[in-house]
């Protein structure tokens, strides 16, 4: 399975927030897609970067690293960073790893 089949990323802008909606699975194969999506997005200085996790079916530890890399990428450039609540598996991994406490979560 090609990485692009595994994960589709839709980008949309709403009120100074740039949403990256992740649909599929975020793991070792697909994590680089998230990085390139961020890099190719034309972010304004005050934009908030939001990962929309509602349609993310699966995330593993490499996917988690990709997610944290996105957070770092945003904060290095002065953007606020947030996520939306994910599916059960995603939320579970975020909370078990203690990452949830370090993420701002927007109400969906």
């Amino acid at each position, binding site marked *: 399975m090609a990485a692009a089949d595994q994960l589709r990323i839709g980008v949309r802008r709403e009120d100074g927030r740039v949403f990256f909606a992740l649909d599929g*699975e975020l*793991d*070792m194969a697909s994590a680089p897609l998230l990085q390139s999506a961020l890099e190719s997005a034309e972010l304004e200085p005050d934009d908030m970067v939001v990962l929309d996790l509602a349609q993310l*079916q*699966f995330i*593993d*530890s*490499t996917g*988690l*690293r990709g997610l*944290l*890399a996105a957070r*770092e990428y945003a904060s290095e450039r002065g953007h606020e960073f947030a996520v939306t609540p994910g*599916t*059960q*598996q995603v939320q*579970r*991994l975020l*909370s*078990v*790893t*203690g*990452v949830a*406490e*370090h993420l701002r979560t927007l109400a969906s």
Partner: protein
Amino acid sequence: MYNLQTGEEASAGRAEAEPNSDQGRMSPTAPAPDDVGVALLVEAGAVLATSLELTTTMEQVAGLTVPRLADICVIDLHNDDGTIMEVAVAAADPGIAAEIEAMRRRHPLDPDGEHPVARVLRSGESLLLAHMTDMLMASFAQGSEHAKFMIDHRYRSAVVAPLNARGRTLGTLSMLRLGECVPYSGSDLDLASELARRAASAIDNAHLFSEVRQVEERLAAILVNLAEAITLIDEQGRMVFANQAAADLLGVSSPTELMEAVPGTIMDRFLVLDEHGAELALEDMPSRRLFAGEHPEPLLVRNIVRATGEERWLIVRSSVVTDPDSGRVLYAVNVFENITEVKRAQLAESFMAEASRVLVSSNDYRGALEQIARLAVPQIADWCSVDLVGEDGGIERVAVHHADPDRLALAERLHRDYPPTVEDPLGAPEVIRTGQARIYTAIMPEQYAAYAQDAEHLELLNAIGATAAIIVPVAASARTIGAITFGSSGSIRRLSHADLTLAERLGRRAGTAVESARLYTERTRIANILGEALLPESLPEVAGAEIEALHQAAGELNDVGGDFYDVLAYGADRWLLVIGDVCGKGPRAAGVTALARHTLRTAAMLGQTPSGMLDTLHEALRRQPAGADLCTVCLVTYERLAAAARLTVALAGHPPPLVIGADGRRRNIGKPGTLLGVLDPVDIKEVQAELYPGETLLLYTDGLPEAGGSADPTLGERNLLEHAAEASHVSLGGLLERIAQAAVRRTDGKLRDDIALLGLRLVENGGVGES
């Protein structure tokens, strides 16, 4: 004050002193009374001040009164059980003294009886019996033999004074005059009372002293018998206590020798280095820093005996003994824990992990072997060389490295001018021929002469000055394809059999690498070589429990995953169970995995708490150059108690371990904590729990709950629960197998992630202190 009024004898007590007191107070043999009294008290003061040994002191006190004031002096003490014990008898006639002692043994004084000693003990007041009649003596005698004894020896006049101290009557001091004598008077009673009071005070101090001494002796007995070396240092840096273990550690025959040494001279016998090889001074020692008002952490010290080159790793812990009143630091207590074996094993492990990483990092095994030679120096040896059998069957030098550049040049010249051949009787050629490792713990210069081909050869060998060597085969399958030589020269380093074991392992791994480079795909090669470095070769025995581990790699190519587990004993009766997951796969993840394992091992040996160990690992990951190395860990300490085991669980981004009861019920233990390596600050909470016989503790990596992947995210967890129900019916190993097999089945044989399982089951009646 008692007055004994029997009508037959004279009255007693100060108020009724004899009329001609000046003359009357004089014993027939005594000088003027005032002088006697003053002299006696001065002498008594000297006696009481010098000795704290009770019986001796009392004998000396009694002896002072004879013959100047008395013909016989007896000191009795009140035992704790209420009986009366004679402790000292002095008499002008030594025969009488012995008879009195024998008499008292045969006829102990009745504490409730009428004997003047018993009465004074009860009342605490002194008693004067100026004139004793035979009838009076018969009335308080302990039987007829006793009465006859007193009458036969013509007891005539007596004073009995209580030994009073701190409101208690400890005993009595009795003085007696015999036959035709001057009877005792009130002023004699005063003197006896004063002497008794002083003696009582001395006894009281002696009692206190002996209580303290008993505590000290008990403490000393404990310290003396401890296997750990212990020393006590005072403010001046003098050693005031050391046990035999300390003497052994510091290379002297007895604790006394240690305590008599001039401060600092013992340390001069050793090269004392910190963990990173920097030399430490006396001022860096925790005890010195305590006196300087600091609060030093336990110090890990590499200690090399200058005379022999023997190397030891010690953890030095110091704590203070302070004056309870002033709070001043009186002593520093040093505890030395010898962790040489552990540290060597750990260094060996991390060297092996690093060597393995090097071996897989490139297809160029020659380059890798060169790097290994450099890695080994100076960590393992002063020099290292690698020889392989070339295609032509000759011996080819692939790598050589020496800590000393001059000696390196000499070694290269030696190899060029005197190249080894397969027929050489010694050295690498011999090992390549036989496939057997060799160790030379002490090479003598005479041996060079026997080996040298000519004078120039000998000169080179002498200049290189090898003092020890280990040569191991580079083995692949059943063939020996080369040899690695480790040597000492130009240092006091010793090579031990432990080094030989390490070198042999390296030889095997190098052999695998060389052969794999020719035979296998790169990925399989990496997996073969690295796999060994990531997981323990065997699990240690854990008191009162059985323990099993299982690792199932994901992927067809057996790719190296980042799962790891470890079990180690630390401290006398504690074990550490670790399971973790490093993000990613391949050599990079493997490197981080090795780092995680060894960092946690070191932290445990340094006595850190579980959360402290995780903090240490977090810091180590943060220092990694590339960053974003992410790792989750579940860490459990295990301590076996009589009826249960005490667990402390610390989680860093890892699922909590499961406890499965004998009845199949299960519970999770632990509180979620932050994963390591990426987020600051990490927040780890330690949770205590107890594990009972028949219960199973299960640590697992998150590959398991996610075995179902996207189709059914909780399938893995359900799988775990289903097996928990039947846990008590199968062996521990069987349980782990079933869980893993089910996970593989449910993912149609395509595991997304590795599975690691570490199980511990408490056995019945395996507790400490049970039979």
